C-alpha cells in the first residue's frame, strides 16, 4: 500500500505515528491505553493541586468525547444531548449521595441517563442530520427547564448543595476509571458485529439495513451506551462542584464542547478524541481564568482550521500532511508575488494587440 519513507528520521516518525494512531492492532491499542492509564494513576502522588484538577477535567473530556465518538462519530448521528445525560447523572448524584454508596450513585447516574436515552432515541433516532441534532438539543433544554420548574414548584429550591462528598482522589480515580472504560469499550466495540453495524449505519444506513442490520436496535443501543458514560461522568463531577443547579449541569456548552473535541480530534478515529481532549483541557485550564474571551476564540479558530484543513481531525495528522501544508504555503506565497509579473506580461501583450 503506502511506501516506507526514505530517511532514518522519517522512518522513526512513521513508526511512532503508526504505532500511536493506527487503529488496526488490538495489542498496541491496549498497550497505549495501559501506559496512559498508569501515568494518570500515578499523577495524584506527585502532581500539585492545580495539575490534578487539570487532569480531572482532561479525563472528564476524554470520557465524554470518546464515548460520544463511539456512537455519534461512527454512525454520524450528531447528538447535542450530552449535557442532558451529564445533568441527569449530576442530579442523581445530588439526590442519592447521602444514602447510597459511591459506586451505586455512579451506576444509577449511568442507568438513568441510558434509560432516558432509550426513550429519547426511540422518539428521534429515525431522523437524520440537522433534524436529529436540533431535536436532541431541544430535548436537553426541555429536560433542563422541566427540572428547574420541578425544583422551584415542588421542592422549593434553586440548586442543591452536596454536603457529603468523597475525597479528591476517589473522584479522580473514578474519572480515570470511566475514561479508561470509555476507550476500552471503544476498542472492543470497533472489533465486534455491533461496531460493524454502527459503521454500516454511518456509511449507508439503508444498505446496512438490507444486508441484515437491525438499525433501530443498534442505534438505540449505541445511543444508550454513549448516554451511560455521560451520566456516570455527570454523577462523578457533581461532587467536585459541591453546588449544582440546572443551569450549570445542563449547560448546553458541555454538549457543544464534547462535539467540538470529537470533531477536532477526528470523529472516525479511536485516539483522536483523546488527543483533542488533552489539548483542549490544557487550553481550557490555562486560558479560561486569565482570558475567557481568548479561550473561546481559540476554540472557534481551532474548529474552523480543523474543519477546513484537517477534516479527518488531529488523529489524521501525518508527517506528509505537514509537508503538504508547507508546500501549499510556499506555493501560495509564490502566487502572491507572481501576479505582478504576470500582470505586467498581460499589459505588454495588451498594448501589442
Amino acid at each position: 500500500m503506502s511506501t516506507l519513507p526514505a530517511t532514518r528520521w522519517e522512518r522513526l516518525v512513521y513508526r511512532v505515528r503508526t504505532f500511536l494512531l493506527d487503529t488496526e492492532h488490538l495489542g498496541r491499542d491496549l498497550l497505549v491505553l495501559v501506559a496512559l492509564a498508569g501515568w494518570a494513576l500515578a499523577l495524584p502522588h506527585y502532581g500539585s493541586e492545580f495539575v490534578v484538577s487539570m487532569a480531572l477535567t482532561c479525563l472528564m473530556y476524554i470520557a465524554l468525547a470518546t464515548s460520544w465518538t463511539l456512537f455519534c462519530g461512527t454512525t454520524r448521528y450528531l447528538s447535542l444531548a450530552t449535557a442532558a445525560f451529564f445533568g441527569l447523572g449530576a442530579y442523581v448524584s445530588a439526590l442519592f449521595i447521602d444514602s447510597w454508596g459511591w459506586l451505586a450513585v455512579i451506576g444509577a447516574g449511568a442507568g438513568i441517563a441510558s434509560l432516558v436515552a432509550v426513550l429519547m432515541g426511540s422518539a428521534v433516532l429515525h431522523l437524520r442530520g440537522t433534524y436529529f441534532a436540533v431535536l436532541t438539543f431541544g430535548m436537553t433544554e426541555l429536560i433542563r427547564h422541566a427540572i428547574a420548574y420541578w425544583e422551584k414548584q415542588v421542592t422549593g429550591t434553586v440548586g442543591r448543595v452536596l454536603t457529603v462528598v468523597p475525597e479528591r482522589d476517589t473522584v479522580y480515580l473514578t474519572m480515570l476509571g470511566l475514561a479508561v472504560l470509555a476507550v476500552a469499550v471503544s476498542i472492543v466495540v470497533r472489533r465486534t458485529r455491533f461496531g460493524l453495524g454502527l459503521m454500516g449505519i454511518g456509511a449507508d444506513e439503508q444498505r446496512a439495513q438490507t444486508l441484515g442490520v437491525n438499525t433501530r436496535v443498534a442505534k438505540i443501543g449505541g445511543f444508550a451506551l454513549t448516554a451511560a458514560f455521560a451520566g456516570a461522568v455527570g454523577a462523578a463531577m457533581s461532587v467536585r462542584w459541591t453546588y449544582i443547579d440546572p443551569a450549570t449541569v445542563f449547560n448546553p456548552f458541555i454538549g457543544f464542547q464534547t462535539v467540538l473535541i470529537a470533531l477536532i480530534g477526528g470523529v472516525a478515529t479511536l485516539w483522536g478524541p483523546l488527543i483533542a481532549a488533552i489539548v483542549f483541557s490544557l487550553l481550557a485550564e490555562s486560558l479560561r481564568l486569565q482570558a475567557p474571551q481568548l479561550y473561546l476564540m481559540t476554540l472557534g479558530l481551532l474548529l474552523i482550521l480543523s474543519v477546513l484543513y484537517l477534516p479527518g481531525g488531529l488523529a489524521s495528522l501525518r508527517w506528509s500532511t505537514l509537508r503538504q501544508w508547507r508546500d501549499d504555503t510556499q506555493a501560495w506565497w509564490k502566487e502572491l508575488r507572481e501576479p505582478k509579473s504576470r500582470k505586467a506580461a498581460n499589459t505588454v501583450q495588451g498594448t501589442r494587440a
Partner: protein
Amino acid sequence: MNGHPQLEARGVTVRFGGLTAVDDVSAAFAAGELAGIIGPNGAGKTTFFNALSGVQQPTSGELFAHGQRLTGAKPHQYAAHGIARTFQTPRVFGQLSVAANIDFGLQFAGLHRKSSWLLKDEDSILHLIGLSDQAGLPAAAITPSQQRLLEIGMALATRPKLLLLDEVAAGLTEAEVEAMAQLIRRLRDELDLTVIWIEHAVTTLLRHVERVLVLHQGRKIADGAPSEVIRNPEVVEAYLGDEMTEAA
C-alpha cells in the same frame, strides 16, 4: 418445500401523495424462477422492488415470503427471510476493502443461514463474482462495472433464496452485459436462487429470462413468457413498438 411461492405480492400499491407509483400489482415468484421486470421510465419498477424488499412500505397490499406474511416488516427482516437486493447505483462501502464489503453481509443476514458451498465464505463469494484479485482494494477504487459485481456479491453474502437485481447491467459494455447475464443464470442454476431482474435494456433481458412482467404507469399490463409478452398489443403500445419488434 411447502408449495408456497418464494415471494408473493398481493395487490401492492405505493402512493406518494397524489402520485400512484405502483398500482395494485400482484405477482408470485416460484422457487428457482428467473423472471424479468420491464417497463418504460417511471413505470414504477424500482418502487415495486423497494416494496418487495421492505425499503418502501406499501400503501396497501400484502407481501408473503414462503407463505409467511411480511407486510410492514423492516428491510433487515426481509433479509432474514432470504430476500436480498442490489441498488441501481451501486451502494458499496467505499472505505472498506472489497473483501470487507462481502464480509458485512456474512456478519449480519448471512450469519445463521444455511448456504451453498459457493457462498461458504468471503473467498468463495469473491471467486464466484470474479473479484478475487480486487479483494484487498478499497471498494471506492474499483471500476463502476466491478462495483456492480460487488453489489451482487454483497447481496449474495446474506445467503439469500431470492435475489432482486435492479439494473445491474446498466452502463456496462456489451461483453460485460453478456458476462453479467451468464453470472445471473449461474446463480440461478447452481445456487437454486429465485432471481427477479429489472433492466432498462429490454433486448438483453428478454434473451435471458423465462418470464417477464411489464409495468406501465404503475400497473402490471403483462406477465408471461417473453415470446408471448412481446406480442401483447398493450405492451407494444406502451413501448411504441420500437424495442419490442427489435427484440422479436
